[in-house]
């Protein structure tokens, strides 16, 4: 071995062996971590859910429906139907329609949203997520946007 050669044959083999072990470990651990990560199931998400007939649904009345197991709030305003995810953007509690105040209220930390889903007061950092609404044969159909 020359004086100037900083890597001996032995240490080169050591590096090779160590590097190989690291690659093996990553090869084993990566699929396991990936497997543990929940596989997204979005198949039924595109399906629209009926919130009921428009007939007899008065203005400023709201209904709750489940879309993909997640609650949604469907509201008839003076202009038409609006739908929002009922999961509060603060800490995930389920919001309710408050008829007296004409606001969407979160029972956990007194967060309030207006009928457009925008934050009026309280801790929620973002407006409620809006969902799509379509009127089909007199029925209010809701689906995620």
């Amino acid at each position: 071995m020359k004086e100037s050669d900083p890597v001996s044959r032995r240490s080169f083999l050591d590096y090779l062996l160590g590097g190989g072990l690291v690659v093996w470990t990553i090869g084993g651990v990566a699929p396991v971590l990936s497997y543990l990560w929940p596989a997204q199931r979005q198949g039924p998400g595109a399906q629209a859910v009926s919130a009921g007939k428009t007939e007899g649904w008065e203005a400023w009345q709201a209904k709750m429906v489940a879309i993909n197991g997640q609650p949604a709030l469907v509201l008839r305003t003076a202009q038409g139907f609006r739908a929002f995810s009922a999961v509060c953007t603060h800490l995930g509690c389920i919001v309710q329609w408050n008829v007296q105040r004409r606001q969407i209220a979160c029972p956990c930390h007194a967060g309030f949203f207006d009928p457009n889903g925008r934050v009026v007061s309280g801790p929620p950092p973002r407006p409620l997520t809006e969902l799509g609404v379509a009127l089909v044969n007199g029925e209010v159909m809701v689906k995620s946007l």
Partner: protein
Amino acid sequence: MKRLTQYSASIRSWLAGRYDIGAVEAFAEEQAHKPLPTHVGFWHTFGSLSLFLFLNQVVTGILLMIYYRPTVDTAFESVRFIITKAHFGWLIRGLHAWGATLMILCVLCHMLRTYFMGAYKKPREVTWILGVLIFGCTVTFGFTGYLLPWNQLSYWATVVGTEITGVIPFVGGYLKTLLRGGEGITGETLARFYVLHVVVLPWALTAFIAVHLFLMRVQGLATLERVGEEKPIPKGVGIPFFPHHVLKEGIVFCLLVAVLLTLIVGWPIELGEKANPLSTPVGIKPEWYFLPTYQLLKYFPKMIGLLVSLVPPLLLLLWPFLDRSPERHPKKRRVAVAIGITALALAIVFGVLGHISESTRSFRGQKYDFDMYSVPHRIPPGTHP
């Protein structure tokens, strides 16, 4: 690197202030550099390969349990979810299913090596008996795990497999009901097999393996010398466990992983159709390791067949007490070696017969129909069986 050394030195001194770490290190050092008999070679790596495959089964089994649901309505669907939707689920299930097959193969090779090298003789009889129990556990793992995907093959193989226990006089009916959790194969059977597969058998096998390894380490590996004439291996003569034998194990370990991955990718184990208790598919066969017994049972009336199939495991269990010769070297044990080779040949022959029975196969352009005893019947050209 220097910092890492400093950290490990400070951890060591922290531990040394509380525990007798020197004794532990001395023990580990002695175990790592223990000299092995000079005939120890690649045949001696099947034990550690079996151990590795057992660990593989434990890890992949835990991972499968995350998505698997052991009920009649969800078992099949959850396995389908694992192999089609879960990330790398096909790999995890493949490692488990093919790992099981390879584990049985490795345990068998390990037993054959022990048999032919006479390593089961005094003072290692208990280690051998534990080994036979480990083999029994491994095969039972295979039998109980086979039902869990709840597909047609697994359902009907379990129907036939559990039906055999009903033949035992007096207690057979009770045993069958106990095993199945009722009259037929239902959700109760699935729950029972699941509990056996993921709780009872793993702990039983872990205990057997622990004592088996402990005895192996305490008594050391057998040499090829006569019983009672084994001499301790002098330092510098034997093969050091580390690094010499560990390197050999590393090589076969890499080969095993390569074979395992090739099998998973090249020959994935099909899920098939969901179990239908109202329709038995044609040509139901058990897994390869049950084929010799399956075929043997056909040649005898039910009761006698069961007795005959109980002979090999009993012989295995009692073998160290039946073979009284003090010789260990295979060249000096011609009868024992002949018996071993005959048993192996019989198992292979019956296995092959079981595999080709009740099927139609072509041989040199001529079609043959094999009946349940694997007797070929020539099919004249132009006819459809």
